[in-house]
């Protein structure tokens, strides 16, 4: 059997089948399948024959569809472990969120399409698969009985606008390669490519749909979207940087990438500090973190790949814990405005603790998962530009202020309110695993080395 069938076709088909199952089985099938796919990627290397007694197993690398190839090579193995491992957390967590069947069904199909985006050759066609995944997110965000808000419409528009820019700039890039030194053409391509990724990643000011979505859609689904799409977009962007090395060697383009990242982090951090809605705070925190990832990608360093993945891996965990906590709290209070969640620490102590842990982790608080990658990033960034470091630090400070405000409101209970645990055992289990993961990665960051050691092999030139 070939790798694209195992990690793309099978989850996609099972995603469709889950839609016909009962609500209570969906998280276990979705989560179990994702876990199994992560384990297969971990235990069985792609394109290597394994002998089990008289049985020989070999997963081939590619399949051909309409004259083009979908290839998942040996180097993609660890990436697949990471993707399906984090996806399984989201699907198991769906048990605690509303409408698990729809989430697991569409979620699996989205992850399968996004995996196809890293497998397709030429890799430029990934833009089309990212657009398809974005369209599948829409029914997940808006239930059929809910009127679509501005956030979801903007999300659809921005993702659709990104695709032509990226496809066309990809075609233009081949021309630029053959006429190296043509400054006009380079500028045009850079602008088109930049616009495409600005729409995809939500670079300032194109991220306005994210806080809107956090208000109008389920926080759990929006959290999943904020994990899945940027993760694969970043891998796609790294593919561009690897294929067209002149982008990173050009000081202007490299500075533009860094500037975009810092602008995202600084503005999102400052906006987060001013929010009166904990969902919107989470949205801005996700934007700020995407900004840090963009900043890491723009570094003129051999550590680009390591730093980017060091930021990406804990992000999945942080967002999962944060979104699940928000979903649990939203069941109780309906609106996530600060005035509505006042004093909830005494009624939902575990959800509130998990939420604050995820929030503090995103601010880079010591002992939490977000701390080691930020340390690495500061170290590299401070060596290159102190002014960029200052603005990025300002954004992180904004997130910290937001977390302190949220904490103050959560503990502001009326006098005499008794402490009680209202989360279900499943909520406690899922949140417990998530928070334990945040501390584990924060205290022992070397556990990530297992992934990071092999991920640079995905790229030929980047980080070498």
């Amino acid at each position, binding site marked *: 059997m070939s790798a694209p069938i195992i990690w793309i076709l099978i989850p996609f088909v099972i995603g469709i089948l889950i839609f016909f199952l009962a609500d209570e089985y969906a998280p276990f099938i979705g989560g179990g399948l994702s876990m199994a796919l992560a384990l297969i990627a971990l235990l069985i290397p792609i394109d290597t024959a394994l002998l089990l007694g008289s049985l020989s197993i070999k997963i081939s690398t590619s399949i051909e*569809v*309409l*004259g*083009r190839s979908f290839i998942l090579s040996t180097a993609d193995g660890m990436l697949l472990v990471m993707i399906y491992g984090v996806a399984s957390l989201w699907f198991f967590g769906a048990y605690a969120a509303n409408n698990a069947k729809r989430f697991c069904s569409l979620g699996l199909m989205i992850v399968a399409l996004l995996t196809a985006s890293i497998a397709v050759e030429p890799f430029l*066609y990934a833009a*089309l*698969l990212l*657009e*398809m995944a974005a*369209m*599948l997110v*829409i*029914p997940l965000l*808006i*239930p*059929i*009985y*809910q*009127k*679509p808000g*501005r956030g*979801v*419409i903007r999300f*659809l*528009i921005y993702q*659709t*606008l990104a*695709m*032509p820019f990226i*496809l*066309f700039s990809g*075609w233009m890039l081949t021309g630029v390669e053959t006429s190296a030194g043509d400054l006009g053409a380079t500028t045009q391509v850079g602008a088109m490519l930049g616009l495409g990724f600005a729409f995809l990643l939500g670079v300032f000011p194109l991220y306005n749909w994210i806080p809107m979505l956090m208000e109008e859609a389920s926080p759990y689904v929006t959290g999943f979207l904020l994990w899945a799409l940027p993760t694969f977009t970043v891998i796609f962007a790294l593919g561009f940087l690897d294929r067209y090395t002149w982008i990173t060697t050009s000081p202007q383009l490299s500075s533009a990438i860094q500037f975009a990242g810092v602008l995202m982090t600084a503005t999102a951090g400052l906006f987060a500090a001013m929010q009166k809605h904990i969902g919107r705070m989470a949205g801005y925190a996700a934007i700020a973190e995407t900004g840090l990832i963009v900043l890491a990608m723009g570094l003129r360093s051999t550590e680009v790949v390591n730093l980017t993945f060091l930021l990406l891996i804990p992000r999945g965990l942080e967002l999962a814990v944060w979104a699940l906590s928000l979903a649990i709290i939203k069941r109780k209070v309906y609106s996530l405005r600060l005035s509505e969640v006042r004093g909830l620490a005494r009624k939902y102590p575990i959800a509130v603790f998990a939420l604050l842990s995820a929030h503090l982790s995103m601010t880079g608080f010591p002992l939490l998962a977000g701390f080691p990658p930020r340390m690495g990033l500061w170290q590299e960034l401070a060596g290159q530009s102190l002014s960029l470091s200052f603005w990025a630090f300002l954004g992180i400070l904004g997130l910290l202020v937001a977390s302190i405000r949220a904490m103050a409101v959560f503990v502001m209970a009326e006098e005499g309110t008794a402490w009680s645990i209202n989360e279900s055992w499943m909520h406690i289990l899922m949140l417990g695993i998530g928070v334990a993961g945040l501390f584990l990665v924060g205290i022992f960051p070397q556990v990530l080395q297992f992934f990071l050691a092999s991920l640079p092999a995905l790229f030929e030139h980047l980080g070498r």
Partner: protein
Amino acid sequence: MNMIAWIIVGLMLVTSTVILINYDWRVSLGALGAQYLGVFFLSTQHLPFIMGAVKLIAGWMVVAVLGMTRLGLSGADNKSEETFLPRGQWFRVILVGVIALMAAGSTTRIEETIPGLGLQVVAGGLFLIGSGILQLGVTSDVLRITLGLLTMLAGFEIIYAAVESSVLVTGLLAVVNLGLGLTGSYLLISGAFTSEEYEEA
């Protein structure tokens, strides 16, 4: 052949203007259907007939999906819900004129930069991209936003067909068009029912 291609560009100018200024969804969808004929003709300047036909059929399927969905919804056109000012039709006609002038101005320069695309292909593609984006900027109605996205994508497809003739890309673009149509239909339907009505159905 050149003259026919220019007539097709003119047809697309008319159809996209109709989509932009007309509030009757039946007329707008009819114009979109006619627009896909133009897309078919211009993309077959560089693509084989069959691949152009895929674009035409996918486009018409999108029109059918949107039409059937809108037909099933009660209520008048959303003219009153438009929040963008000014709303006048003449204002939009002037905007279309600006887009047409910009497209005409850019066409020769792009043809010089990328020779072989064909003036009609570039002009038609650029005009559709421009009017699609214009549509996105002047409306908040879901159907009209979907029409804007489809128009923009149609323009892109015309130009991209000249530089990329892969079967997979043509297939994926057709899926993206169908997906946009289905997503637009879903967004049109959503909110039309209460959760109780949905559970009963």
